[in-house]
């Protein structure tokens, strides 16, 4: 079904738009799922477009090279599937995915990443993408993934789920740690941390606060214990991580 939402154009009619998007044919073929390709490397777009063209189940509705164009093209074409490269020139591919998820109807989203880190995968799953592929995969895998998405299959693998849940575990641990420690740190101690962060010595901090060096030393020792740190650098890093102070 080739729905065409636009300026009241009759169904099936094609028109070249002002954007740099290149439109494919809107065919009346009922079986094909329509794909929007969002990637800023033309060479990649070419090979993916060609491969999708060879698939009987897919047809490319458009190709765009930026996030803004992607959102515009989506609202014009309402493709079933959107393939998004995480690295785009104007915004993160994840931001595009985030916004597309709020659209009605919502498309299936396959994210392509040039990275292999757990955090990007986790962020993608948090956003709620339907599939995540690394660029170390081949084009065949991309096409297979799009076909499976079109058929309504789930693409997030058990390994990816496991990795995301592990990352969630880390997030939980950090959040718990923060809520355990932060409330126990007095405003005065935060002040001391800020001074230490600016590079002041203990003596200078004592001067600043109008107390003895010994008092500051004791306070700092207590702080290190609370932050589970053995030196200034660790303490400052931990404090920044917990949001108590800002670095730089």
């Amino acid at each position, binding site marked *: 079904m080739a729905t065409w939402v636009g300026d009241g154009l009759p169904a099936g009619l094609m028109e070249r738009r002002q954007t740099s998007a290149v439109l494919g044919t809107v065919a009346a073929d009922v079986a094909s799922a329509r794909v929007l390709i969002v990637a800023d490397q033309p060479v990649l777009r070419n090979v993916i477009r060609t491969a999708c063209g060879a698939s009987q189940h897919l047809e490319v509705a458009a190709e765009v090279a930026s996030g803004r164009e992607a959102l515009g093209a989506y609202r014009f074409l309402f493709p079933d599937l959107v393939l998004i490269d995480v690295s785009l020139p104007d915004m*993160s591919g994840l931001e595009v995915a985030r916004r597309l998820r709020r659209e009605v109807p919502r498309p299936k989203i396959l994210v392509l990443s040039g990275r292999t880190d757990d955090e990007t995968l986790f962020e993608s799953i948090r956003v709620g993408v339907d599939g995540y592929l690394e660029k170390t995969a081949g084009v065949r895998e991309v096409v297979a993934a799009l076909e499976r998405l079109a058929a309504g299959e789930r693409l997030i693998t058990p390994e990816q789920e496991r990795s995301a849940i592990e990352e969630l575990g880390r997030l939980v641990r950090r959040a718990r740690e923060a809520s355990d420690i932060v409330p126990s740190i007095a405003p005065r101690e935060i002040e001391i941390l800020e001074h230490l962060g600016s590079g002041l010595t203990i003596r200078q901090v004592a001067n600043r606060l109008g107390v003895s060096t010994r008092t500051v030393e004791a306070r700092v020792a207590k702080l290190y214990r609370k932050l589970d740190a053995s030196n200034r650098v660790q303490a400052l890093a931990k404090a920044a991580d917990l949001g108590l102070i800002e670095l730089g």
Partner: protein
Amino acid sequence: MRLSFFGPNADVSTMTRVLRVLVVDDHEMFSEALALLFGRQPGIELVAALPAGEEAVARCRDEAPDVVLMDVDLPGMDGIEATRRIRAASPGTRVVVLSAMESPTLIVSAMAAGASGYLPKTRAADDLVAVVRRAAAGEIVMADDDLPVVLDELRTGREPNVAAELALRRLTAREIEILRAMAAGDAAGEIAETLGISSLTVQSHVKNILAKLGVHSKIEAVTMAWRHGLATVSRPV
């Protein structure tokens, strides 16, 4: 952005014989894209697509291809080092360095390592073909906008900071989002609002960014982002 070519087009034979090209990139998708591209070009033969630097050096030593298209971000030996070794092992082989990220710093390092040019992967397909042909003939290629920056880096004599460059690549997509916003001058609160997360989360990310980049202040991180092309001063994020 226009490409400029420099230097003598010395090897006329490259116009009449088939040019043998080696692609080095761990993103199989990209290698396949280049294979498709060159497959349609008469006169260019893709000899192999390899995922790592070491293999590429060995292959060049044995087979001396005309041109190597070398990705900068490789696992293990990085593309700049691989370029250096290939140039030493097979002087007749030209190397053009490709990168997903624009970066003045890397260009300088690439040229110093003996590359014939440096291209971002965002270039059009036609450009890539032209680059292969002209690099094989002995020309140097560079995007117009990059030249002044490269000359400036050379003039100020700063050590190309390849380590910093590679460090930037270790940032996650989220961290890059935040670093770009910082470079655009957004405060933590604004960033939090735009991304729909808490400002504490933003601060946590900032801390990780500073740690990964090996810097101690936000201004250093932002400067790195500008210098390495991650964000432009004028471009709104």
